[in-house]
Every structure is written in structure tokens, then in C-alpha cells.
């Protein structure tokens, strides 16, 4: 009886995933438009390659059958490199952002100590850190990790703090009345009650991680989808630039779906 109920609620939340035909009308029109302007010679291929060519390059990038570009068959290698960078940077941001955010939301001394500094640092756009990061960490791996962790930290921290500070005092009273001490109040009331807000912060943070892995990889590493983009631009492979963009978008979307599924596993409600 209980299980049946539970399933039906999963269905409700899965509604947002349901296919809506209206949503793909515009993309189809855009692709048709793209096809028309590229196949009737209005726009040269070195500026905008036709969709079929981009499709073939994309497939070739993954399987390497046709060798149409120097990057044929190397997708998995680059995608893995970028993904690992994203996961490392994101993990760093989450490990710092979640506990600090929760503490900021609950403990006034911590908030007064941290909040002004965090808000000040936050006013610098993430991209603005790039030159300084290159001076500090050199070109490559460390700079990329720094940029990702920094960019993802803010939404994770802020949403965790927001969630923790808006826990209903009635839940806290109920917890205390049922025998929770300060520590168990934190782990059994404040954390789960903040969870929806915390989860939203993590998803925002992961999205930013993908944006900033590209930024980091544009600056002189040899591996990763961002590096492929930069390299292809210099070699005049506009199709490869576009293909890299598409794969980054796909990976970003996929990782968000996986994160959402994991979060739902932790807290089904």
C-alpha cells in the first residue's frame, strides 16, 4: 500500500521529464534554417559548416571511422579529461560550500565572520580571476580546478546558508521536544530541512563547473573539450568547434540528470 503511493509521487516528479512535442518545433525550424542558408551558398562553410557535415564530424569524433578531422575517435579521451576536472573542482566546491553554508545559515558568529568576505569576493566575475589564477597556478590543470571550484562555491554556499537559515523554528522545537541535542538537531533536522535548497545550489554549482572547465581549458592545456575547441579554431575547423560545444552541452545535461537522480536517492521526499 505504502509502496504504491511512493511510486505515484515519483511519476508526478517525472512529469517534468516527459516529452513535449511543442518544445522541439523551434529547434527543428532552426536546423532547417541552418540547412537552407548553408546549402544555397549564402554562408561559406569556413564560417558556418552545414548541419550534415557537423553531424558527421560529431559522429567521427566519437567513433573515428571516417577520419574527417585530426580529432577523429578522440572524443572519449577528451570528454573524460574534462569530466574529471569538473568532478574534482565541483567536489572541492561542495566540500567547502555545503558545511560552511550550513554553518553560516545557523550560527550567527560564523555568518558575521564569513558572509561579508564571501559577498565581497562574489562581486568579482569568475572570468576576472583568470589572469591572477594563471600567475598563481600557471597554465593548465591547477588554474582550471581553481576557477571551477571558485565559481561553483558561491551558489552552493549561498543556497546552503539560505536553506539552513529558513528552517522552520517549529521543526527545531519538535526536534528538541523529542530529545534531540545540538548535534543531532543539526544532522536530523537542519540538514534534511535545508536539503531542497542545498540541492538547488549543487545543481547550479555543477552547471557553472561546466562553464568554467571550458574557460580553464581554453588557456593552453592539450586535453579536454575546451582545448579541442581552441585548437580547432586555430586550425580552422569550425565544425569541430561546434561539435565540441554540442558535446559539452550534452555532458552538462547528462551530469545534471545524474546529480538530480543521486540527490533524489538521498532524499526521496
Amino acid at each position, binding site marked *: *500500500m*505504502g*509502496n504504491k*503511493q*511512493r511510486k505515484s*509521487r515519483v511519476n508526478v516528479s517525472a512529469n517534468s521529464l516527459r516529452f513535449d512535442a511543442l518544445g522541439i518545433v523551434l529547434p527543428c525550424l532552426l536546423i532547417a534554417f541552418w540547412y537552407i542558408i548553408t546549402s544555397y551558398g549564402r554562408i561559406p562553410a569556413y564560417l558556418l559548416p552545414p548541419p550534415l557535415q557537423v553531424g558527421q564530424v560529431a559522429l567521427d569524433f566519437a567513433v573515428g571511422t571516417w577520419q574527417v578531422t585530426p580529432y577523429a575517435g578522440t572524443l572519449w579521451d577528451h570528454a573524460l579529461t574534462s569530466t574529471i576536472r569538473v568532478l574534482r573542482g565541483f567536489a572541492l566546491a561542495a566540500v567547502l560550500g555545503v558545511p560552511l553554508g550550513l554553518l553560516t545559515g545557523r550560527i550567527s558568529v560564523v555568518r558575521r565572520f564569513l558572509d561579508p568576505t564571501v559577498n565581497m569576493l562574489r562581486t568579482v566575475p569568475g572570468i576576472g580571476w583568470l589572469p591572477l589564477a594563471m600567475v598563481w597556478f600557471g597554465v593548465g590543470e591547477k588554474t582550471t580546478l581553481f576557477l571551477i571550484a571558485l565559481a561553483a562555491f558561491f551558489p552552493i554556499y549561498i543556497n546552503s546558508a539560505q536553506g539552513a537559515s529558513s528552517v*522552520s523554528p*517549529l*521543526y527545531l*522545537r*519538535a*526536534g*528538541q*521536544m*523529542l*530529545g*534531540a*541535542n545540538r548535534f*543531532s538537531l543539526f544532522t*536530523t*533536522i537542519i540538514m*534534511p*530541512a535545508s*536539503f531542497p535548497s542545498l540541492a538547488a545550489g549543487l545543481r547550479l554549482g555543477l552547471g557553472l563547473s561546466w562553464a568554467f572547465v571550458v574557460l580553464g581549458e581554453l588557456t593552453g592545456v592539450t586535453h579536454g573539450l575546451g582545448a579541442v575547441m581552441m585548437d580547432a579554431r586555430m586550425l580552422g575547423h569550425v565544425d569541430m568547434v561546434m561539435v565540441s560545444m554540442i558535446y559539452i552541452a550534452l555532458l552538462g545535461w547528462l551530469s545534471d540528470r545524474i546529480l538530480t537522480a543521486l540527490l533524489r536517492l538521498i*532524499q526521496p*521526499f
Partner: protein
Amino acid sequence: MIDNQQQELIIDHLYMSFTRPDDGVPLKVLDNISFKAGGGEFISIVGPSGCGKTTLLNIIAGFEPVQEGRVLYNGQPVVKPSPERAMVFQSAVLFPWLTVHENVAYGLKRAGMKTSDYKSIVKDYLKMVRMQGFDDYYPEQLSGGMQQRVALARALVLQPAMLLMDEPFAALDAQTRLTMQELLLDLQQELSTTVILVTHDVEEALYLADRVYVMSKRPGRFIHDLTVPFKKPRTFSLRGAAAFAELKTEILQCIFDQVDD
């Protein structure tokens, strides 16, 4: 009727005021409240909205500090909440991220009980409030009355010496309210827990209680108290009895006189 040694809770000349948030002027809420409770007695406190009923319960529960006067529980000043004085709130305040079973088990877990030990206890208490079979439901999947039953089980499972109830049935529809009142009457007979129930429903107060205190409008003070003469167990037909109606009128008159001046 009940001798003083048995009194678990002593409220002695309790005053309370809040600071009004807009102009900082003190707002007197409780005015010289004194009473005793214990020995499995069922006490109802009835008064108009905003008279300070919730505030009084919050002080007894240990959620609000005592400003002036004394609140003693088993001889000790009340300073913080305790499972010995369990509260059932007006809205059930179940934890929405926990299932019904987990909500009821919450306090037992905090007391260090192991899963194997509390599982059957939780089932017993869910059965007691007629909620067997709903273990895996989440609170939002239950009606208001069902949620309040679970809240009752969550409090009772800790075997509190005292149950504090803040208009627990006020948000329910009329039929559900009657059913819940019968349930509470039965459970209190069975467990002989001391109950302090605050309500604005005069009939509810009278039907359930051994003793009724009537509160004035804010600042709340006791303007009347009476011992309810009807023996327990009580049955539904009591509500129609002439003597019941007489007492009800007496209390209503009391409240009505207040509103006048």
C-alpha cells in the same frame, strides 16, 4: 482531590510579555497565572484567540523562557524542552522528509534505541492511534486528521509524564474533530498521562477534561475554574445531557462577559 505530592507541574504567579516588534513597547500576554497539574489529570484551558494560550504552553514545554514567576516540573525549574513534556502542536509539525514510521521512531532513536527494538513499539503506537498500515507514507500524503494522529503517536511513544496539546484539532473538519476527541479520551484513560489541552472550543474543553480553566482575553489570566463532575469513561451521549449544557453555558457566559468590557 489530588494531593500536592503528586503534582508534577507547578505554575506559580507567572507573568509574560513580548516586545512589540513595530514600536518596541512591551505587550503583556500572561497575567499572574497559577495552577498545578499532575497525577494523570486532564486539564483544559479555554480562552479566546490571542489570549496567550500558545505562549503558556510554550513556557511549560520549555520553548520560551520564564520571565517572572516560577514554573517547576518535579520540583525543578523548567529551562529547556524535554521528552517528559511532549507537545502536540496545532499543525502536526511532522518532519516531511521522514515517513510516518520514521517520524514516530524519531524520539526513540534520539533516546539511543536500536532499530530492532523500536520497530515493534512504533507499530504498536501507530495501531493505538488507528494508523496501522501507513508506515511508509510521507506526511504530505495524509489528511490533517491522520497527520495529527501520527503527531500524537510520536509524542506518546516516548511515554511522557505530561502531554501538552495546543488546539490540536482546531484545523480539522467537524466530524474528524469529534473522532479525534473520542480517540484522545480513550488513549488518556488507557495511558493515564497528565494532559494540558488548550483550546478555544468550550465543548471540547468540557467533554475531555477533569478540570477546566477559563482564560480572559489578552493579557490572559484565569477568570474561572471548575471541576468537571462527569465520571470517566465518558460517552458521546454526554454532549446532549442537560448538566453538560449547563456547564457549557456557564463557561460561555464567563467568556462573553469578558468580551463586553
